[in-house]
């Protein structure tokens, strides 16, 4: 495979044209982890959910935590790509493609974790045949499938110009690949009219997806919030989950962008300035997350209702204290210290903080889901939950398959939206200059009043 096109874009197509041995090593490692996870799931399927650490009263465990976490991760894409498109943040451009891919590849694991958690996955279609909209699970099924479908289209529309470039600029490609590019490009020629249409569609989709981000994660939280379980039944749980999701998603994007930058030598495209912008964003979300945490626990503590206080105590001082306080350290203390300081707000610093945030947010989901279940209202005694190797293997398998899909995706289309970067040079910069001028006295606005 060869790249024949403008020299300036060569670096963006390099990952497709050239694949080093490290990539195959990574692939092999990921496949091994996926096989481990699949074998654990096969064991669970044949023996029953008894192979997990779940029990009565802890009827939910790691799978439900993964469900919430992956759905949260999926918000990275829409957030960077859609919300920043709406507000016109130009620094989004090198991130959009990777972000949308995070959404697309993490969502199936969010939905999939629910299926893994089912006692009878073979009866899944009952949800459609007998679906009851009184149940928050049905709200989730609706919202998540709509979100998955919309994200798929959003991802694909933004892909069309780049697929067309692949079709035109890549030479000596296999017949399959050639067919694939031709098919996906939908006869794109790159005319101004086509770009204008694409931008209109993308702007509408961006609004729609932003609305879905809010709906989806609120509804995810309502699985918990709508029950009368102490620790879950709070009005703040919707916005709290949403902030946490965007927080973890944006942090995940920092990690992925840093890996892509290093592995595919994209230093010229993804620059420290981009990481600084994303870091400030993550820092703001860290503060917002902490504010919600304080608001939530202060209300419970001051209210001092016995049923709620046993859960509060379990998190603050008892068996969940280490997970809870580690969450606070990883999601608040570390990000504020690293990202709040200009000297440590480097790419390395941002990546360290982001890894911490993602571990912390997974733990946060854990300390929302599990402690409440260990404290039944009637005096049955305290529930204990210890995840088994099967649960960890399936979890690892999900993360590995996510990484695997992402890695393969980098070999099919450019990981940076080539057309969006070009658009910045050709259209956005002159537009921004005009806009800036119009802010100040003495000039007539070039754009509509």
């Amino acid at each position, binding site marked *: 495979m060869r790249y024949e096109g403008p020299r300036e874009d060569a670096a963006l197509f390099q990952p497709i044209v050239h694949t080093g041995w490290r990539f195959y090593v990574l692939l092999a490692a990921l496949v091994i982890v996926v096989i481990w996870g699949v074998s654990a799931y096969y064991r669970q399927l044949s023996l029953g959910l008894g192979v997990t650490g779940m029990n*009565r009263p802890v009827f939910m465990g790691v799978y439900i935590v993964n469900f919430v976490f992956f759905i949260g991760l999926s918000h990275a894409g829409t957030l960077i790509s859609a919300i920043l498109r709406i507000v016109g943040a130009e620094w989004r451009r090198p991130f959009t493609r990777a972000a949308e891919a995070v959404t697309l590849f993490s969502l199936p694991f969010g939905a999939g974790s629910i299926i893994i958690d089912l006692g009878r996955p073979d009866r899944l279609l009952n949800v459609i*045949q007998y679906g009851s909209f009184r149940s928050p699970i049905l709200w989730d099924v609706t919202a998540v499938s709509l979100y998955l479908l919309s994200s798929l289209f959003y991802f694909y529309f933004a892909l069309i110009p780049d697929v067309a470039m692949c079709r035109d600029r890549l030479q000596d490609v296999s017949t399959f690949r050639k067919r694939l590019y031709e098919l996906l490009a939908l006869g794109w020629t790159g005319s101004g009219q086509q770009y204008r249409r694409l931008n209109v569609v993308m702007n509408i989709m961006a609004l729609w997806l932003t609305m879905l981000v809010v709906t989806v994660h609120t509804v995810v939280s309502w699985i918990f919030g709508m*029950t009368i379980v102490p620790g879950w039944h709070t009005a703040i749980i919707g916005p709290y989950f949403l902030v946490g999701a965007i927080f973890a998603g944006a942090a995940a994007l920092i990690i992925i962008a840093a890996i892509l930058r290093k592995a595919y030598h994209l230093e010229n495209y993804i620059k420290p300035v981009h990481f600084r912008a994303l870091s400030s964003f993550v820092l703001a979300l860290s503060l917002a997350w902490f504010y919600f945490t304080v608001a939530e626990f202060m209300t419970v503590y001051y209210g001092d209702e016995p049923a709620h206080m046993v859960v509060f105590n379990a998190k603050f001082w008892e068996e969940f204290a280490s997970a809870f306080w580690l969450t606070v350290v990883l999601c608040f203390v570390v990000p504020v210290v690293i990202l709040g300081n200009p000297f440590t707000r480097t790419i390395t610093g941002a990546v360290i903080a982001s890894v911490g945030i993602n571990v912390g947010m997974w733990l946060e989901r854990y300390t929302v889901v599990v402690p409440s279940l260990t404290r039944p209202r009637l005096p049955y005694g305290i529930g204990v939950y210890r995840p088994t190797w099967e649960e960890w293997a399936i979890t690892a398998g999900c993360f590995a398959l996510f990484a695997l899909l992402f890695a393969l995706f980098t070999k099919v289309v450019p990981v940076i939206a080539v057309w969006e970067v070009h658009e910045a040079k050709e259209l956005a910069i002159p537009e921004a200059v005009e806009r800036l001028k119009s802010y100040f006295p003495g000039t007539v606005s070039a754009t509509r009043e």
Partner: protein
Amino acid sequence: MPRWGMVIDLDKCTACQACTVACLAENNVPWAEPEEAALGRAIFWQDVITDVEGEYPRVRARFTPRPCQHCEEPPCVKVCPVRATYKDEEGLVLQRYERCIGCRYCAVACPYGVRYFNWYEPQWPEPLDQLLNPDEGPPPETRGGRSGPEIRPKGIVEKCTFCVHRLEKARHEAEEAGKDLTDEELVLLPACNQTCPASARYFGDLDDPESTVSRLAESSRAFKLLEDLGTEPKVIYLKAGG
């Protein structure tokens, strides 16, 4: 239309657990290995909750037999995504075995902990496997689905039915004989009630003002579990030491 309920007199209850055992046998509840039971995996549609307060010598132990509360406003029914659990016309909260997808959301939503999950394929050691109750559940068409003592597959949720199959059977027999079910026949109808050596349990129609359960429910000793949650249980307890 009757509205089935139960009264449990805690003053009479000796916490002997005969009700628990009778329920296990009547409803073909699967056996749990001791290590599984230690994990909290044993199934007891009818359980006796033990609550010990204080330290020796000032100890107070409370025993509360706990079947499903068959709430008028059941939190479990609301959350079921496939309507596998439902409240029937006579107020019984039942579980359709053939429809449940095993998400366990109902088990989480129930504040009384009366819902149980089949973590494995059900099994019984010898000779218990020879002693299963051959009775079938009520015909699916009469109660809208399969429930009762019929063997459950792994991966679904099950719960107390107030022995709905015994109710259907008794009703059928009464119909054949051209009679109505009497309050006397109903009082001891569920297996737990029939077995209770202290006669501490009563079953019957809460909408019939003359029924035993209705009269007992008016007692000044009457109370319900977690009444302030608004679930409106149809199991009424009579306070001990009254």
